[in-house]
């Protein structure tokens, strides 16, 4: 494990210490995460990169509080989310976390406006206020003329943009994105990734990205490379590097 650079001057928002996750599959024990220590900084875009089976999705689930580790702690701000119960976690997610899914996961009975407004509805915000916020969000992702479309009337790229608007609408501190472009073509992938990066930079939000695709990882500020449940490397990806990569591609 080689640590290339450490960002001393940045504020840590997530502190992962000694995370280990073991699944019991019948008689066999599968170690999904071995021993993970990781600091994630406020406002950065972090990519958890690895092949399938490397434990990257498991790590994301731990960070988002969707799954409990076998041992270790995940401090978000001052809260150890591994110690929270189900309803505390739900409240925590409601307040601080946004989520972008690979398969969009929009509700088909609702329009895009209603889908985006949903996290605010769960917070108990009245219809007028939350619709105004949702409309503003949809405008930011360039879907101001798709407000009343149902998800099945939109393309994958459009649906994912609705998904992004939904993740950002509550102005969360952290947005998790699990293979957000996995179902999209390469042109749409670029659009979606640039949208996410732009939005997170505007509001100084932290994005934690999970991908197996180096192109996607390239959008991140730092790339955590996971192999067999251990961090192999953490690379800082500076801007020039990223532009270079793009030029090379063209």
């Amino acid at each position, binding site marked *: 494990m080689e640590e290339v650079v450490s960002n001393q001057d940045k504020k840590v928002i997530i502190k992962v210490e000694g995370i280990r996750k073991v699944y019991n599959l019948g008689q066999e024990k599968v170690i999904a995460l071995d021993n993970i220590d990781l600091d994630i900084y406020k406002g950065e875009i972090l990519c958890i990169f690895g092949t399938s089976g490397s434990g990257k999705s498991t790590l994301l*689930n731990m960070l*988002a509080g*969707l*799954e409990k580790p076998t041992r270790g702690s995940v401090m978000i701000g001052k809260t150890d989310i591994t110690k929270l119960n*189900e*309803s505390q976690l*739900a*409240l925590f*997610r*409601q*307040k601080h*976390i*946004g*989520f972008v*899914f690979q*398969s969009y*996961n929009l*509700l088909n*009975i*609702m329009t895009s406006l209603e889908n985006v407004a*949903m*996290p605010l*509805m*769960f*917070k*108990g915000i*009245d*219809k007028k206020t939350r619709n105004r916020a949702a409309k503003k969000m949809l405008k930011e992702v360039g879907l101001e003329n798709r407000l009343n479309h149902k998800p099945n009337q939109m393309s994958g790229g459009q649906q994912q943009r609705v998904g992004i608007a*939904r*993740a950002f609408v*509550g102005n969360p501190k952290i947005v998790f994105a*699990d293979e957000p472009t996995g179902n999209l073509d390469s042109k749409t992938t670029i659009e979606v990734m640039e949208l996410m990066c732009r939005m997170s930079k505007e509001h100084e939000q932290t994005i934690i990205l999970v991908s197996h695709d180096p192109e996607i990882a390239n959008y991140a500020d730092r790339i955590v490379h996971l192999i067999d449940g251990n961090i192999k490397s953490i690379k800082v990806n500076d801007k020039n590097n990223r532009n270079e990569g793009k030029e090379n591609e063209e």
Partner: protein
Amino acid sequence: MKIYDLFRLCVSNLWKRKLRSVLTVLGVMIGTTSIVVMISIGVGLENIQEEQISSYMDITTIQVYRTWGDENAAKLDEESLGIIKKIDHVKAATPYFSYYFDVGDYSNYRMTSGRYTYSGSVYVVDLSMMADLGYELADGRWPTAKDENVIMFNENGPYNFIDSTKETWSSGAYDSQGNKKPLPVDPLRKRISMQVQYNQFDETGNLKTYSGDIRQHKLTSPGIIKGDSSKDYGQAIAYIDYKFFANLKEEYYKVNGLKMTNNDKMFDQVYVKVDDIENVADVEAQIKELGFDTWSAEQMRGQMSDMMQTVQLVLGALGAVSMLVAAIGIANTMVMSIYERTREIGVMKVIGCRLGDIRAMFLTEAACIGMIGGICGLILSHSLSIVVNIVMSSMMGSTGDISQIPLWLDLLGFGFSILVGIISGISPANRAVKISALSAIRQE
């Protein structure tokens, strides 16, 4: 989450699965209808029966008897009357016993108006209580405290006045053609008086002559009491105030040279009017505790009412069977819905829906199915009830509505259907709450 949002979400989810929602609602509708209609028949039967009883007797009146022959028995006098009046739920209490006045020598009292003499029943009562006892005026007014020597007749009462030179007893209010005859004496306009009789006989059975003067009491008759078949057997009656009568009685003893004992001052019978049928049994028990014998229609009615409640319960239970089926239907629909929406529920959890809201969502849906089913069921019940009544009355003649849905039954049906919805929804809702956010995302 706001309640408004909960309902909107619930409606759009039910609407999305229209057919299934409608079928489930149908089940609740049938369940509610069968319970409501069954109970409505029980209610109808009970009401018909109660109407029948109250058409020939006053069911809120308790009769209290004097105990004869036992010196130590409770005394039915002014004092006990006062105690009885103070019992809770007693609306009125009055002495209530009758004398027969006639034209013969044996009658202790004689009431006359011109050439007419009264020959019939006279009831000794507290006239100030008559309105509370349920008597109504046909004419005139009720007596006030200022009125002295009061006598009141019911509508047919004056027909008991007979012209003793021509008749020996009253021939009633109607002539042979069935037409009402003119009143022999109009109590509101004619002067009526009362006199105690001296009727002591010598050894040979001849009436002795009285040397002194016997006072003529001029009577006041301020009003006429309406005839009522459920009271006093629909007889022609004169009602005399009990305090005035006590004086008369004393006078009679004096004139005839008899000694009046305490026993002679007691009332033979007292009527107690209770404010509501439901309290009759309770009041009656309290009066019995004072040591008096009583009678009321309650004993009979109580037994019938118990029987009718059993009938209602059995009918309701029959109806409840189909409600149970409906409840299973709701639970099944909810479980299916949760299976289909596993992913949706997971997503909601991930993007910040709280556990309580998830539970509330599904309980609302289940309650909504119950409520809509309940409302439809009540509409159907009322329609069916009308049909049943029309069919039954054409088959058996008009004996009253056999199916009656009082407001409490509507509320019961409505409340019960919602309750069944919620109860059937509890277990599925808990299942939804337990769905892991993670597995919802994984399932692809």
